[in-house]
């Protein structure tokens, strides 16, 4: 069974990755997970300087999902290179470093610095970050800004460049087209959905920043629709992300057009979910008599005469 795939000269063992911010820097779970069964690890988002993150409470559970407001808490790129990268290099899997920043220049500085170091196989760019210049509006909801970040970073690296899109836009397909045009090798679809939870008795929001990012099985139908929309509008490899708990969930993402998947929130319930999913996809494909997991990518059996953006009510 062929399980792997290639993205811009980098080969990945299989199509199952762990999502940024849900697997730390890989060392926290060293005793629980055999990462050699993963396609790769997306690191927690790194910024130039370390970030404390948001005040508590940072998480709240919601129906079949969770809300988070971590605030990009991270150790910063320098500490990452010193303290985390050496360990990551020893792992028998691919390391994709996820980058967050509050200015276009900061994205460039972080990627530029990392690109000089061994043991990094690609970059995933988190554009769901407040753009300080624009008074905190997220880069990721501004198509031009997102494309600008992409082309600036493309000029700085020969490694796979993956832009992680936010679902909180009207036409995500336009963003995918723009970043492809700007030189991205792939897109990750999707980051969390803006959400909110309130304690009726205390009248307080359940996360300190009032709104937060919704993740988990609750958003899987939204993520599938976003991946499908991107796959219908642009020909670019897609990392499908959103509520994946099982191999069957992952197969659904492949069918709608994802070339690979990422496991996020499920890691909090079981950090080895990615390994289980990778194995599960393989046996599913075997049952279906396939020789290559890739045969599932975009293999949805659907009439093509419905547009994602049409109403359905």
């Amino acid at each position, binding site marked *: 069974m062929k399980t792997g795939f290639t993205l811009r000269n980098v080969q990945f063992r299989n199509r199952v990755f762990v999502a940024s*911010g*849900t*697997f*730390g820097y890989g060392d*926290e*779970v060293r*005793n*629980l997970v055999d990462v050699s069964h993963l396609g790769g690890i997306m690191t*927690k988002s790194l910024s130039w300087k*370390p970030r*404390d*993150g948001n*005040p*508590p*409470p*940072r*998480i*709240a*559970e919601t*129906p*079949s*999902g*969770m809300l*988070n407001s*971590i605030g990009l*808490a991270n150790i910063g790129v320098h500490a990452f290179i010193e303290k985390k990268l050496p360990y990551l290099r020893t792992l028998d899997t691919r390391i994709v470093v996820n980058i967050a920043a509050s200015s276009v220049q900061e994205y460039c500085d972080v990627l530029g610095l990392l690109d000089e170091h061994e043991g990094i196989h690609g970059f995933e760019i988190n554009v769901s970050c407040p753009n300080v210049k624009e008074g905190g509006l997220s880069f990721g909801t501004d198509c031009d800004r997102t494309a600008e970040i992409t082309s600036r970073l493309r000029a700085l690296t020969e490694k796979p460049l993956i832009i992680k899109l936010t679902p909180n836009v009207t036409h995500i397909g336009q963003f995918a087209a723009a970043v492809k045009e700007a030189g991205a090798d792939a897109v990750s679809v999707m980051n969390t959905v803006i959400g909110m939870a309130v304690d009726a008795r*205390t009248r307080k929001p359940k996360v300190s920043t009032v709104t937060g990012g919704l993740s*988990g*099985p609750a958003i899987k139908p939204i993520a599938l629709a976003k991946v499908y929309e991107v796959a219908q509008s642009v020909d670019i490899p897609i990392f499908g992300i959103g509520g994946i*708990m099982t191999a069957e969930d992952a197969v659904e993402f492949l069918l709608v057009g994802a070339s690979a998947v990422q496991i996020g*929130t499920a*890691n*909090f*319930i*079981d*950090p*080895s979910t990615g390994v289980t999913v990778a194995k599960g996809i393989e046996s599913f494909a075997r049952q279906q008599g396939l020789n290559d997991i890739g045969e599932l990518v975009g293999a949805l059996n659907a009439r093509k005469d419905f547009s994602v953006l049409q109403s359905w009510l």
Partner: protein
Amino acid sequence: MTLCDAEIIGLRQVAQGVHVLSFRSPEVAYSILPGQFLNLRVHDGLDPLLRRPFSVYRVEKEIVEVIFNVVGKGTAILAGKKKGDMVSILGPLGVPFGIGGRFTNAILIAGGLGIAPMPILAEHLRKAGKQVEIFVGARTSDQLALQHLKAPHVATDDGSRGFHGTVVGLVESYLKEHPLTDAKVFACGPTRMLSAVSNFARTSSLPCELSLEGEMACGIGICQGCPVERTNGERRYALVCTEGPTFDSTTIHLREG
């Protein structure tokens, strides 16, 4: 740290809305230390989605016990478990209480379900040759779960049993009569009580460790979801799940409800 399914041996109610869940887990039983916790998956459905953290209450041979209050979905599902059911456990997690060190008297202060880590803590302290005095507070007497606590001093808010007032008030009045030299305080309970305890410890200049609660997603340091503000050091927050749940009371700022 292990992640495995454990067989439930029994579930018993020990006070109003308070249950003790027993399950067989050699891995945990032989490695757990007082103050550490487990992250339990209450079912394999999608709602509630996340694991639920519980301190270890007691250990007997291969049997591990947690004690809990039914406060919501997850604990309601736990309270419905039957002998023979399996429950997925992740642990032992977190930093245990510091029971070593040169103190001779241990003052254990529990508010409400804060008694959870006390039986195992007292046992280890006594094994280590410490003198242990246990103080337990509750709103009313029927919420008290005093099983497995040796000669506890009791306080209730409504005076229905023992000292009429807060457990910290009880500790203070007790120490007036029985001053304790080189003592160390261990406390677990609601945030308001923990603040009172750390104030008390500071004024009476006693070393003090608190066991914190708070929302958690992963329990193993990968979600950054459980910060507590530190009083010093260059990092602003510590993670309750990996750097706690037990903290020296002077190193953290307790969050106001």
